[in-house]
């Protein structure tokens, strides 16, 4: 019998019940909750007169709607100007109070983007099954956990039963060997992977990222990679546990302590695919081949190295792809044959669950230090992923570097990644963004998003257009 993949092991150890048709009940160790996708689930529990199966397996934090502008933020929930947003955050507070669920409130220093806070606090741990009503839950797979986004009906289902009903996925290995060039980051790696396999390339699969490049990434970098597994269609992204993982988890507020820690570490050391494990699909990339990436279109798979030129639809044979390219160019206001480095920018956003951790902010600060944001960049935001990231960055003086360069230093939240609060693009504006989605209207009605790494976004903010950060 072939060995097991990491995903096989996590699936097997959480199997409660299998049905004849191959679907199963999977036990969920941790549910993360935010304000946008949970109110209807709590309402469902109330209507059916049900209680959470295990209150202590749930953890909540508001992030999508919270204002990031310091003055508005200082008023707490009551100070949120947008009434509809305020009601949603208030509703989360009330639901967590009524059901006795742990919540980090809006101005708690531990508050932040749920996918930054979970690992940071040790609320999410290796070997867990983790769900959240948010597709970027795949982020936590960087810890060797089976983590996935679910809809609101499943949020309610997990609250009520501690289980998720699903079919087992297939196994895909994305192996990146070799070494990254200087200036090339985890974000470029995952964008290159999406460019190679496409936005549906990982559908029905759990993707394990492996190889020398992945092994040498920090935990922050690994989270960036797993975060965007969903942009390749995979609900689950995974990276095997190693010393880097264990060092990261050690001492986190909710991580196990003492003898329990030793016991947990022994178990976590098994969280890797066996040498003879079978993968349904294997994709290989070389680290040396990956250059800094920039998306030019309206799907994350529409991505090129910074040295690239915008594709010409006339050269595309497939009618569907040609039409998609034409539509994307029209929406983005770009012309075939134009160089990526000629795209002028109106805004820069450094933040989101993809790239708002301390390492991301350090990389961006290093690039802008002593420089100034270009005149055509009307707005440049730096939004730390959590209150703790913000504190750390301020202790290192990064906030001053950003402010002196002309970038705004904000309070933690999802912010302009999806523009549910007041941080949004104007119609037709081009933005260099460290977030994860360049869909039409994602960052604001008519907004034009280009996904890049923090260093690339920072360099673009100074140049006013894209530049190769390796030449910086």
């Amino acid at each position, binding site marked *: 019998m072939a060995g097991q993949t990491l995903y096989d092991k996590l699936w097997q150890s959480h199997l409660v*019940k299998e049905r004849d048709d191959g679907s199963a009940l999977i036990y969920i160790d941790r549910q993360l909750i935010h304000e946008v996708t949970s109110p209807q689930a709590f309402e469902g529990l109330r209507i059916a007169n049900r209680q959470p199966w295990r209150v202590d397996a749930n953890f909540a934090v508001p992030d999508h709607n919270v204002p990031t502008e310091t003055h508005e933020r200082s008023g707490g929930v009551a100070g949120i100007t947008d009434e509809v947003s305020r009601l949603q955050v208030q*509703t989360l507070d009330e639901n967590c109070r009524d059901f006795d669920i742990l919540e980090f409130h809006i101005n708690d220093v531990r508050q932040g983007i749920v996918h930054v806070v979970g690992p940071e606090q040790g609320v999410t741990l290796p070997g867990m099954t983790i769900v959240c009503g948010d597709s970027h839950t795949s982020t936590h797979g960087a810890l060797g956990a089976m983590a996935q986004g679910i*809809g609101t009906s499943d949020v309610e289902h997990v609250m009520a039963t*501690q289980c998720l009903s699903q079919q087992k996925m297939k196994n895909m290995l994305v192996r990146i060997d070799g070494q990254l060039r200087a200036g090339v980051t985890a974000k470029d790696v995952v964008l290159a992977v999406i460019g190679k396999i496409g936005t*549906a390339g990982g559908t029905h699969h759990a993707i394990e990222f492996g190889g020398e490049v992945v092994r040498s990434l920090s935990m922050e970098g690994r989270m960036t990679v797993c975060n965007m597994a969903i942009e390749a269609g995979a609900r689950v992204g995974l990276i095997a546990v190693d010393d880097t993982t264990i060092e990261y988890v050690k001492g986190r507020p909710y991580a196990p302590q003492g003898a329990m820690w030793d016991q947990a570490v022994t178990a976590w050391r098994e969280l890797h695919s066996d040498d003879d494990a079978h993968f349904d699909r294997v994709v290989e990339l070389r680290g040396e081949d990956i250059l800094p990436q920039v998306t030019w279109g309206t799907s994350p798979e529409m991505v090129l190295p910074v040295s690239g030129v915008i594709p010409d639809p006339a050269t595309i044979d497939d009618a*569907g792809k040609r039409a998609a390219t034409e539509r994307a160019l029209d929406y983005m206001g770009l012309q075939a044959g134009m160089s990526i480095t000629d795209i002028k920018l109106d805004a820069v956003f450094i933040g989101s669950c993809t790239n708002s951790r301390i390492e991301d902010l350090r990389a961006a600060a290093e690039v802008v230090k002593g420089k100034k944001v270009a005149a055509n960049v009307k707005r440049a935001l730096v939004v730390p992923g959590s209150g703790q990231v913000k504190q750390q960055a301020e202790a290192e003086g990064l906030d001053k570097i950003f402010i002196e360069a002309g970038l705004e230093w904000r309070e933690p939240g999802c912010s302009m990644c999806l523009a549910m609060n007041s941080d949004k693009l104007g119609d037709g504006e081009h933005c260099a963004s460290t977030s994860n989605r360049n869909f039409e209207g994602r960052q604001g009605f008519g907004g034009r998003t280009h996904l890049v790494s923090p260093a690339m976004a920072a360099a673009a903010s100074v140049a006013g257009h894209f530049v190769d950060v390796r030449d910086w």
Partner: protein
Amino acid sequence: MKSFTVLKGIAAPMDRANVDTDLIIPKQFLKSIQRSGFGPNLFDGLRYLDEGQPGQDCSNRPLNPDFPLNQPRYKGASVLLARENFGCGSSREHAPWALEDFGINCIIAPSYADIFYNNCFKNGVLPIELDAAIVDRLFVELYASEETSEAFELTVDLASQTIQTPSGETIHFEVDEFRKHCLLNGLDDIGLTLESADAIRAYEQKRREQAPWLFDVIG
């Protein structure tokens, strides 16, 4: 949960690949704490020429005449004929809520994003996966019908897993047994899972011995 048995209705085209859930229902409408009322904002950015706001009366907004669902021949459509990777991106269940609220109860496409596909079944919306070649052919037939006065009407029968087309053709489709059973009967899947409460408790007891740190109270 809403059930789905037989649906006879007009199919409308959504002729582009990778339709994401941001496109199906833009984020400003996700601020609602309700489960209903999203229909007027389905495909908001494509349907209207202006930027929609939550709580706004949509009846006087400027419509995009090129968008099929705004055209008289697709009025009352209950089936959406779509392309690859429909429903990709965000996990927002507001996407099937908006489709269902608008009156779309069935989607036909070559492939779907996993989370969206799963969310549909929870809301009485049947996502049918067919070979790309068959979907291509249905698009050809649908566009041909635009030259006539006949509506492109399909009959979708979940029990027999068939689609009847206007030309009289019967197309078979696949669907998981368990999902089919739940959807046909409109079963409350939480109630169904709770029938396995003993198995869940037994799992927890065993797991607590193996991995006690997973049961450390975080409250």
